[in-house]
């Protein structure tokens, strides 16, 4: 299996991030923005193991939101994210950015 986390340290880090998520989810409603932010995880690492494109966890909400706005408004399409950013409303971008900023992680 190629995609198994490669070291015990990584597994521990994963377990820690899961535990944090669970504590956050102990109340009935899931954290705001979690589901929207999960739609970034196909391509972006949200749990600190270094896979995918630019790591988002650890960036500030403001950084992530403003990057998304810049990409959404870019008239000359340069990358796939210039398109993907068009898939979210302003309120959705703020919500997912706030959630991503709450995750542990190094950022890029």
């Amino acid at each position, binding site marked *: 299996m190629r995609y198994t986390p490669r070291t015990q340290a990584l597994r521990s880090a994963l377990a820690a991030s899961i*535990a944090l998520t669970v504590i956050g989810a*102990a109340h009935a409603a899931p954290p705001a923005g979690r589901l929207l932010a999960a*739609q970034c995880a196909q391509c972006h690492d949200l749990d600190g193991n270094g*896979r*995918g494109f630019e790591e988002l966890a650890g960036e500030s909400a403001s950084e992530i939101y403003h990057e998304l706005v810049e990409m959404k408004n870019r008239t000359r399409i340069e990358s*796939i994210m210039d398109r*993907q950013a068009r*898939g979210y409303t302003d309120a959705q971008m703020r919500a997912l950015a706030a959630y991503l900023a709450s995750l542990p992680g190094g950022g890029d």
Partner: protein
Amino acid sequence: MQTLNRRKFLSLTAAAAGAAALPPQSRAVGARVVVLGGGFGGASVARYLRMWNPGVAVTLVEPNATHVSCILSNLVVTGLLSMNRINLSYTALRNNRGVQVVQGRALGIDTGGNRVTVSTANGNVTLGYDHLVVAPGIDFVPPPGNWNPSLTPHAWQAGPQTTLLRNQLATLGNNDRFVMTIPKSPYRCPPGPYERACMVADYLKRKGRTGATVTVLDANPSIQAEPEAFTRAFNVTHAGRILYVPNAVVQSVDSASRSIVTSAMSVSNAKVLNIIPAHRAGAIGASLGVNAGGFVPVDPLTYAVSGVANVHVIGDACAVPASDGKAVPKSGHMANSEAKVCADAILRALNGEQPDTNIATSSACYSPITSRSASWLSANFIYGDIYDANGGIKGKGMHRVDLGEAPAGEVNQDSYQDMFTWADSLFYDSFA
């Protein structure tokens, strides 16, 4: 007949997750979710249910020991990757996420009794559920004539069929003909057949097969995805090697002689005949009721099947309400996206809450054009009003708010490398 009882089930999953991680106030703790099918949709929903609430017991039922990814499989057909590269194990879901993986085939769903009967190597097992997620992928609608996929492979479900088509392609000599069909939409992976045509043409060039060609018999009136990239690829990049024939509806197939009759063109004795038949929902999904196209209509907020309590269908087997002409594509990436919406809705339902309405789904993919360059495709959907062809509101569903392909300058080597980053990340987000 043996029954995996709830206590044994809980002890297994609690041991895997660490009992201390259980959320103390969640009413979802102890709930049982059974998932049928371990492709991108089924694996992702199992993974996210356990990540978001380790108190939920999740059983994943899958006939095969591993999943072989359709994503990147055209690179296996054309000898650029090994089968091992697209072979995805369930070990990480089992060991890292605490998913109970049962190798077996679902025989039937007792929707009134909330249980599924599964055929395994050790006999039949009955699994009770609080929620059931059905993610069986596709079955094929046999074309008219004498179609035999072991002679004229589809290679549209990866695995032995991928190997078979790879081996047949290897026999192609100078002036030989590779003929492939594309079914009417909707089918799995809209750019996939055009990608395959390009990669076979690239293979013929790399191998120096002079005069050998690819004939694409498309039942659709035009290229269904990335029209600019594939038109350029067919007319410029692979000029003289690809013959594209639209409106070619299959009328008869004879696999023994590798011959085909379509409404636009007939071919006798092709060297390789790659028949991709029309699709319908996988049988266990279809048993829940299908629309005229053969797919299972679902609620876009929960992926629940109307009139069947606590049963959900995700991925290629489902039909999501969408605006006319803006269908939700059937793809591994989209199945993963839908799985997250479904997992969130199930966890809310178990806690007595309403589903989230502020939801988005997406698909993104990279399509190799040659062994050094790739294009990409992006599609995004938001829940809300959906529209008929005249712009009138026809209901609620997933409305496509954006669709676009790589501009010409982005069909390049960087995108080819990004393809592997995307695929590996998606593999991880679904299976690890």
